């Protein structure tokens, strides 16, 4: 295997809230290879976005704080960089697309000034060159009439178009890593597919690795090479995307897959949601955080928290009972 582009090791990010200390990201480790598409999956509030913001160095402090761990990017630990050095990486080496296209663009600045900003910050291109590049980028993301768009404001574009502009912005300096934090959640389903195809295309063209953060398992199946499933701030299962569907090993992953409606299921079959509720992050159950909702849980699960371990097939699972789970699922 080649040297990973991004190596997150034992990352811990906490938030001090009125309800107490929230361990939003608790001992998370994963790697993203150059050029691959890696998906981080989990339900709302499981720490996916906080992981992404930690990588970007955009955790608002206070109340948030990265307590420990390493985020190596090209072999450099981002957590050790100064504010200035981190700014040089943001927008040039790592781009990010956010969830809300409606509010993620500045309403009072033109598309051109927002699109050329990263270029102006990170390159020495002349004004004309940056403007030409901006037109090129708008063309690239498939918005017609690029020249007219330059003088327009975000409110003159549709949600899908704004997200295309966000992609153009994030890709303007040809980053090595593009983080898409629920980038299509707020869009119509038909537009979602277009935007994802677009992200896939532009990142493939430039060899950019794509870190997709989503709760949508359909997206993972279609676009990701590898996937990590997150629950209550911890990774539960990491492996090849295809394997997650064919041979899920963590009870939570199985629960997620079962709760997705399928077109080929018999009419009238009820969905099988995961029993129970997402735990309160300020007051996690002892042992494995998933144990109260888990059908496989044994006594040990309520006392000890399982660590992410590599199984014989090469994937990583954090579950004491993964072998019996595997037998059951087959």
């Amino acid at each position: 295997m080649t040297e990973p582009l991004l190596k997150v090791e034992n990352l811990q990010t906490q938030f001090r809230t009125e309800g107490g200390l929230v361990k939003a990201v608790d001992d998370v480790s994963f790697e993203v290879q150059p050029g691959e598409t890696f998906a981080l999956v989990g339900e709302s509030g499981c720490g996916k976005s906080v992981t992404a913001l930690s990588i970007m160095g955009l955790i608002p402090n206070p109340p948030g704080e990265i307590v420990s761990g390493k985020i190596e990017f090209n072999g450099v630990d981002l957590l050790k960089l100064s504010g200035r050095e981190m700014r040089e990486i943001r927008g040039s080496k790592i781009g990010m697309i956010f969830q809300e296209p409606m509010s993620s663009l500045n309403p009072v600045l033109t598309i051109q000034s927002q699109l050329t900003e990263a270029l102006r910050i990170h390159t020495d291109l002349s004004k004309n060159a940056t403007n030409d590049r901006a037109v090129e980028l708008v063309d690239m993301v498939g918005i017609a009439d690029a020249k007219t768009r330059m003088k327009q404001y975000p409110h003159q574009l549709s949600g899908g178009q704004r997200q295309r502009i966000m992609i153009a912005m994030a890709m303007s300096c040809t980053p090595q890593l593009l983080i898409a934090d629920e980038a299509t959640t707020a869009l119509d389903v038909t537009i979602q597919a277009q935007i994802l195809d677009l992200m896939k295309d532009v990142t493939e063209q430039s060899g950019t690795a794509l870190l997709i953060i989503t709760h949508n398992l359909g997206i993972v199946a279609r676009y990701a090479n590898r996937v990590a499933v997150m629950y209550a701030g911890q990774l539960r299962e990491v492996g090849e995307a295809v394997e997650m569907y064919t041979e899920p090993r963590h009870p939570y992953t199985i629960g997620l897959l079962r709760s997705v409606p399928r077109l080929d299921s018999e009419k009238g079959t009820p969905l099988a949601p995961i029993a129970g509720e997402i735990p309160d992050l300020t007051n996690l159950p002892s042992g494995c955080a998933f144990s109260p909702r888990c059908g496989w849980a044994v006594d040990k699960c309520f006392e000890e928290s399982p660590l992410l371990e590599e199984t014989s097939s090469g994937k990583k699972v954090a579950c004491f009972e993964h072998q019996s789970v595997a037998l059951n699922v087959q």
Partner: protein
Amino acid sequence: MWRYIAQRILVSIPVIIMVGMITFTLVYIGPGDPAAIIAGDEATPEILEQIRADLGFDRPFPVQMGDWFWKLLHGDLGTSYFSRREITELITPRLQPTLSLGFQVVVLSTIIGITTGMLAAWKAGSRLDRNLMVLAVLGFATPGFWLAFLTIWIFAVNLGWFPVIGYSPIQDGLFAHIHSLFLPVMVNSILASAFISRITRSAMLEVLREDYIRTARAKGASELSVFLRHAFRPSAIPVATVIGASIAGLATGFVLTETIFAIPGLGRMLVDAIVRRDYPIIQALLMVVAIVLIGVNLIVDILYAYIDPRIRY
């Protein structure tokens, strides 16, 4: 845009007529008889009648009001009961002190208010922020006349840096002019800037929580650029509103300021006219104030469209 401005001006005509009717009625039904004041203590009823007839007071109320509006339409604000001079002629020399004072206060309070507000937002939660905001609360809790007397007492009477009273027109030199208005400008600016400062701070802090600020940071923008380029303009709308409102406040505040500092401006003229029951002057000045306020509102509304491209009229 021009269409909108034309529309707004058209709509303000009935407003001005309403203001005119109300002020005319209020002054008409108010106590005090100008004829008695003009004639003095030893006037006979015949002389009073004569004066009333001369001034047109013996005519019915609607006729008097109609006559006043008719003249107003022709740019005639009427004649002062006392000096017997045209009011337009009386107002002209009074314009400079008031306008100069107003201009300086608006510029200075905007600069002080926005700078301190932005500093407080930049260092939100710090000691600087807390101190600035305590000052701001003091600023709008302090009565203007009290601060005026205090500054006169300290800087004019005791230290002698500024004249206690007196006004030096621009024609006599810009420095002397600014020097003579320094204390009233400072007092009004400090008080007006307190509100602007607080609003700037809270508007900035609100905008800094927006998603697009995070986007700007994700692009690698420096904190200063995030602050000035991305956050300031979106937060300028409430600030513009407050500056507009403080101009409205100044229009009435100047009555006090000009009286305390003995500045021969419109505010002072209004007080003198009220004391003498010089109705035409009172009415004329109230009309001027109303028109200024309507104009300020219009300018603020146009500014909105300039600040935020989503607002189009």
